[in-house]
């Protein structure tokens, strides 16, 4: 099959033309978020995210695709929560700063799903995309955390990694030296679309959810089509409390935060 790449659309500055509206989107109600980190755990399970360990996590090498940012005032122990909790993940920008800077096209834009993609096997690890992400949403595989010898058990002279049994077969396991980021659980999007297609219908609103939205006990995260005016996520985003992060940078983020009431 002959494949052509339109440079004006893929990972280029010209991506803004098609990106004004977007397709998939999310709303996060910060009034409801309790900072329980269930989304973080669910995301790690769903997307085969490495556990980096205490030391590396403390040094700023967590690989969570979604993180709960805590904001407080004062110094310990006189700490007062101010601003509450803010789950932060890739905003799937329509006009993404990470896209044009990759020298090898590992960060293209999906025309079909209007998402930012990360092609792991194309990535050479320049980390420019992460530097240029104003949301600091990207995480880098600093080492092969999955196969660290101390994580394994010696069974009959062979290293066995019990945690490998919980890997999600729908998602790749990334090796060291590549960038990764939230995909809006694109594997679930595709699964739902395939199912809908085989049944001859459109994907229904609320038919599926990404792992974070599914796990959220307070239902703070809503996912769906933001280009459909009657979907739940559109209604929530447009009810008046919605703000977008760093909107002045013209990144056209697809995640709307509902501020505290």
């Amino acid at each position, binding site marked *: 099959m002959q*494949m052509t*790449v339109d*440079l004006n659309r893929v*990972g*280029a*500055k010209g991506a803004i033309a098609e990106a004004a509206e977007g397709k998939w989107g999310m709303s996060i109600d910060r009034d409801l978020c309790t900072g329980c980190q269930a989304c973080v755990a669910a995301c790690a399970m769903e997307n085969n995210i490495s556990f980096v360990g205490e030391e*590396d996590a403390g*040094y*700023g*090498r*967590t690989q969570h695709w979604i*993180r709960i*940012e*805590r*904001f407080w005032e004062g110094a310990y122990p006189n700490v007062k929560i101010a601003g509450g909790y*803010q789950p*932060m993940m890739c905003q799937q920008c329509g006009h993404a*700063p990470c896209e*044009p*800077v*990759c*020298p*090898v*096209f590992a960060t293209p834009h999906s025309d079909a799903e209007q998402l930012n993609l990360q092609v792991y096997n*194309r*990535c*050479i*690890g*320049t*980390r*420019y995309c*992460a*530097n*240029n992400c*104003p*949301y*600091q949403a990207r*995480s*880098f*595989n*600093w*080492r*092969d955390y999955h196969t660290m010898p101390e994580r394994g058990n010696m069974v009959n002279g062979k290293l066995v990694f019990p945690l490998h049994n919980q890997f999600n077969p729908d998602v790749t396991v990334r090796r*060291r*030296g*590549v*960038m990764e980021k939230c995909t809006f659980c694109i594997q679930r999007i595709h699964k739902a679309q395939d199912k809908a297609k085989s049944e001859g219908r459109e994907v229904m609103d609320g038919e599926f959810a990404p792992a974070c939205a599914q796990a959220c006990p307070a239902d703070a995260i809503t996912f769906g089509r933001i280009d459909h005016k009657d979907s739940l996520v559109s209604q929530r985003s447009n009810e008046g409390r919605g703000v977008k992060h*760093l909107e002045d*940078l013209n990144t056209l983020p697809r995640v709307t935060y509902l501020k505290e009431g």
Partner: protein
Amino acid sequence: MAVLSKYLPGAKKAREDHFEKDDPRQYLMHDPIPRGQMNEMVMESMHVTSWKFWMVFGILSVLVAVCFFYAWGYMIAEGLWVAGVMRPAYWGIFLVNTVFWIGISHAGTFISAILRVFKAEFRRPFTRAAELMTTFGLIQAGASIFMHLGRVWLSYWMFPLPNQRELWPNFHSPLMWDLLAITTYVLGSTMYLYLPLIPDLAMARDRSTGWRKTFYRILALGFRGTEGEWRHLHTAMNFFAFAIIPVMFSVHTIVSWDFAMAMRPGWSSSVFGPYFVLGALHSGMGAVAIVLFIMRYTMKHMDYFIRKEHFDALGKLMMMVSFTYAYFIFNDYIIQWYGGNLATDNLLHWLEEGPMSWMFYQMILFNIVIPFAVLWIPKVRQTPWLLAIVGLLINIGMYWERYIIIPVMLTINNMPFTWKLYEPRIEIYLTIGTFALFLLFYMAASRLIPLIPVWEVQEGQMAHTMRKIGKANVSTISDFE
């Protein structure tokens, strides 16, 4: 580097100190010696090697083996985890080294090409030394870029190679422009180093035996010194001298675009291009001062070629560059501060009073205040070791400048939750490794190729005469070109 009993400045009087104050012979151009003798002097400075040279050479070789090759191999085998890079400082010392070494490499082109085009006579004895810095500095810069990559073994994907999936590199990416600019610069500056070297290689070929003769014979390309050969060589050098100047400006501008094009507080600045070019010249001039000092005091006969007048002229250049640098740094910071953007404000406060503020103040002190304060004084400019110390301080200051721009500025971003201070780990060894490799290349080159462009000095000495105009003795130059 060579056998000489005097290692301390002032232990033996240098050649120019033997002359009276007004004697024109204290200037190299008015102190001609016969051609054969000068050729012998340069050949001798190449051949005479002491145990001290081999000792330093051995130590540097060990450092290169351990800190460059072993450390890099270890990092490739283990992953970037052994380095200090993390979120938010995804870029660390590797890119600091890249920018630093490209900066060092600019001095060579500047001294050699710009001063040659403008016919600044003081350049004559040290164009070669500066050009070698360009080539060897660029090797370190290139190596540092590859160290920085997460999957360096796939770095050839940045080259537009035909492949089955019809994937091409992304020419929208500043890193891609960088790759093209640096490749052009490496090729151009190496050719520009080679062209003026040909007559000296031919000179060395005619005065050596054994493997050296073969080595020089191959490199000299059969140069015999006929009228036609000189005319072609001059045409080629002239062409390259003009062509390499825009390449030099574009390279560091494009390196600065890696930062200036990004959407980050502190980086997104339109003055970064010229600011980086000037910064590169600043560190490069300082490095030339250090190299000339080392050459003059360790190599045989170098006190004839490299004199106080050259340090004096270099000191004036350094002062001028530091003024211009001050202008650009003022332009960069005042505009960012006046703009009042919250993220930029946070960043400036962080530089002003954060844990890395010492680095910021040292940068101002070494790059601007000290050159301002001392280079006015002729005594400082004309004392080689003092000028070398000023050059060293400028280089430390310029290293800090790049360190501030990359990992320190990356610390502060739009997401306060991720702010974190970068700590270098294996980067320190790899930095030592690149410095050792640079010195090793330079020391090897000092034994293999004439560090003094003999023909250029001889040409200058023939062009200079003293003439009497009224009662004054005036130095005049007859222009050959």
